[in-house]
């Protein structure tokens, strides 16, 4: 018995009333996890666009070897804000948003454990977003010390004002940390305490496992960053000496605080995307997820190991040799559970009846680019290579394959896949495919050239460069602009379909999972009666195929 969790057909038929959500609901302090989820997603997408505009300016500057578009301080602010916005206002909140929407539905709960805390955590996002944006209007402009804000660079204060870009940056990051810790408490409690009867840990979808592991990292990593940020804030505002070498402080200690969180943070970002892959590949291959239990447990394993690898970002920071070796080995160890996952997805797709819909294309593209990023990641974890390419475009290429190629593409896969559930409408497949091909070609054109550039020695965070690097930079910029354009069909598609798309059935993909049992969009209380789960997830293709296109409701009626 491998099929999941489907309960009394009566419920399928009766929850079909419309949810009392109108567009106005999304501007209120709602405690419904589905509304909050969409609030998160839309808010972070707006910041994605802002971060994207900054990226266009950066690529515009780099299309010629001279610094001729913006001056150097503006350029510094551009890459600092680009990185900060993309991480703290796009990837983190958008993943939390998706998880907010899906987790209660997937585990058969009516809402998160603490709905009001959930809403408060969400509303902190626009607040710190606005605080961060406000720094564009300050004398001296936004922070310029890069998204990692290493002292002593971040302690420079040419304007002499207390309220400067760096100050607002730290406040924003601190608020973001508080909001994420609230989210972490809420997710962990929800997943541990609110599962429907019969939904044992080994009947949870792999996505829920991934969110669970990621939120555990948040809870145990973020406080370290918060501690470092508070100390840096004190240095900056009241003149303490923690990280200021001129006053006897220790600047490298900040790097430890920073990376103790920020390395595991990459798994906070990537694990839910692994979860998305694990949901999408089985549906569109019509096969169970290969090695489900191993995939599930490997998420927790990655979360655990990720706490012991942070020093690989500091190989070139005067770290003693023995420490470098320890952290080189531990870093390489992370690739074991990660590799197992990749193997499991490939085995899932292998020999399946593939349906190349937009979500499947995005997931496949994301997987291909993740494999590439993994290879460059293992290269970086080896000390001799890292010493050579540290602080060059090679690193930038590596993490953009992760952050655009895998995370952002994975998010798009999720948006398309769950769009019918969230809105009750179908998206336009043609526009979706256009979006995919523009992104896939754009990502590779943009970020692949960064690898040869880095190997040749082009440093990151420079606004002008030696003309010998011009060729690859022009290609990268063209790819960048293509990537910028690729968001247009997406926006058109989402808005257009939401307003007047074809009505979506409850389960358009014939997927298995509790979220597909409720109406599209789901009613406010999710489940009128809480379902009882009786088997493991991913029971696809165990036996003869059913006729195509048979609606689950009809089927339920048939069987009754």
């Amino acid at each position, binding site marked *: 018995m491998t099929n999941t969790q489907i309960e009394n057909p009566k419920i399928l038929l009766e929850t079909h009333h419309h949810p009392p959500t109108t567009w106005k609901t999304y501007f209120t302090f709602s405690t419904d996890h589905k509304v909050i989820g969409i609030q998160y997603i839309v808010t972070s997408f707006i910041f994605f666009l802002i971060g994207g505009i900054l990226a266009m300016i950066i690529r515009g500057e780099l299309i010629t070897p001279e610094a001729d578009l913006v001056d150097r301080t503006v350029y510094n602010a551009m890459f600092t804000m680009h990185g900060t916005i993309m991480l703290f206002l796009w990837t983190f909140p958008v993943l939390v948003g998706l998880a907010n929407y899906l987790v209660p539905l997937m585990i058969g709960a009516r809402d998160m454990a603490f709905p009001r805390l959930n809403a408060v955590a969400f509303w902190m996002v626009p607040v710190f977003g606005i605080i961060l944006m406000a720094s564009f209007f300050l004398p001296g402009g936004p922070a310029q010390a890069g998204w990692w804000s290493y002292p002593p660079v971040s302690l420079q204060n040419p304007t002499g004002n207390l309220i400067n870009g760096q100050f607002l940056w730290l406040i924003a990051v601190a608020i973001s940390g508080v909001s994420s810790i609230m989210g972490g408490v809420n997710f962990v409690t929800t997943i541990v305490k609110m599962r429907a009867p019969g939904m044992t840990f080994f009947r949870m979808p792999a996505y829920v496992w991934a969110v669970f592991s990621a939120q555990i990292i948040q809870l145990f990593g973020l406080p370290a960053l918060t501690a470092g940020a508070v100390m840096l804030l*004190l240095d900056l505002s009241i003149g303490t000496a923690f990280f200021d070498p001129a006053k006897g402080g220790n600047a490298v200690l900040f790097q430890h605080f920073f990376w103790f969180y920020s390395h595991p943070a990459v798994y906070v970002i990537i694990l839910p995307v692994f979860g998305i892959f694990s949901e999408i590949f089985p549906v569109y291959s019509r096969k169970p997820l290969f090695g489900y239990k191993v995939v599930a447990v490997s998420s927790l394993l990655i979360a655990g190991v990720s706490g012991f690898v942070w020093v690989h970002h500091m190989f070139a920071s005067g770290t003693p040799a023995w420490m470098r070796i320890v952290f080189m080995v531990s870093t390489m160890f992370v690739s074991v559970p990660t590799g197992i996952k990749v193997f499991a997805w490939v085995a899932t797709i292998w020999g399946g009846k593939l349906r190349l819909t937009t979500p499947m294309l995005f997931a496949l593209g994301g997987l291909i680019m993740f494999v590439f990023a993994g290879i460059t990641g293992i290269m970086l974890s080896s000390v001799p290579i890292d010493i050579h390419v540290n602080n060059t475009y090679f690193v930038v290429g590596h993490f953009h394959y992760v952050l655009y190629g895998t995370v952002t593409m994975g998010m798009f896969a999720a948006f398309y896949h769950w769009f019918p559930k969230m809105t009750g409408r179908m998206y336009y497949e043609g526009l979706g495919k256009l979006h995919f091909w523009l992104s896939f070609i754009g990502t590779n054109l943009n970020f692949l050239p960064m690898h040869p550039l880095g190997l040749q020695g082009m440093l990151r965070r420079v606004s002008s460069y030696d003309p010998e690097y011009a060729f690859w930079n022009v290609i990268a910029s063209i790819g960048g602009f293509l990537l910028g354009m690729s968001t247009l069909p997406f926006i058109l598609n989402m808005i257009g379909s939401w307003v007047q798309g074809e009505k979506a059935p409850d389960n358009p993909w014939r997927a298995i999972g509790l979220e597909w049992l409720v109406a599209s969009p789901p009613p406010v209380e999710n489940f009128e009666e809480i379902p009882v789960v009786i088997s493991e997830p991913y029971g696809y293709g165990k*036996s003869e195929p059913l006729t195509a296109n048979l609606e689950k409701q009809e089927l339920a009626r048939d069987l009754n």
Partner: protein
Amino acid sequence: MTVNSSISREELQESLETRTVEHTHDEAANSMFGFIVFLLSESIIFLSFFAGYIVYKTTTPDWLPPGVEGLEVREPAINTVILVSSSFVIYFAELALKRHNMWGFRLLWSTTMAMGSYFLYGQAVEWSSLHFSVTSGVFGGMFYLLTGFHGLHVFTGVVLQLIMLVRSLIPGNYDQGHFGVDATSLFWHFVDVIWIILFFLIYIWQ
């Protein structure tokens, strides 16, 4: 959109024939679980500060600011004894509440509050007598950061205790359950344990 499916009819039928139940969750249990998770997370902030303190203490050449000999241990030690004892008092207050002995609860609970407040007072006196400030090198910064951040927690604890005391004056309020009291008391133990580590780090290991 054409969609293929290969779930077998029997399988679906099999799974459709399951029961449904009305499932309720125990809110107080959830809240307590969430609160414990939060405290675990918060302890990482303290651990980070402690780790920073140890790194500074073992690597900084001029650890103490010029003219400072070290910290006076006597008064903080008395303060420590008071704070640690208050953890026992609050435990008995909670016990009294569980036995529905309301006046016993209020008395012991107020005693905890008094002890906590005395701790804060003692720390204020200490701070005002010190000859270094938060900008006196890494030592000064660390000292005020650790004691200040901990003091803020003690203060929060006392405020929470006050709220719970006022709520206990409303008849019948704690008949059904008393998550607030339990959480406050857990928080108090947490703050206490942190102080013990802090006391050894800062005052004993000089």
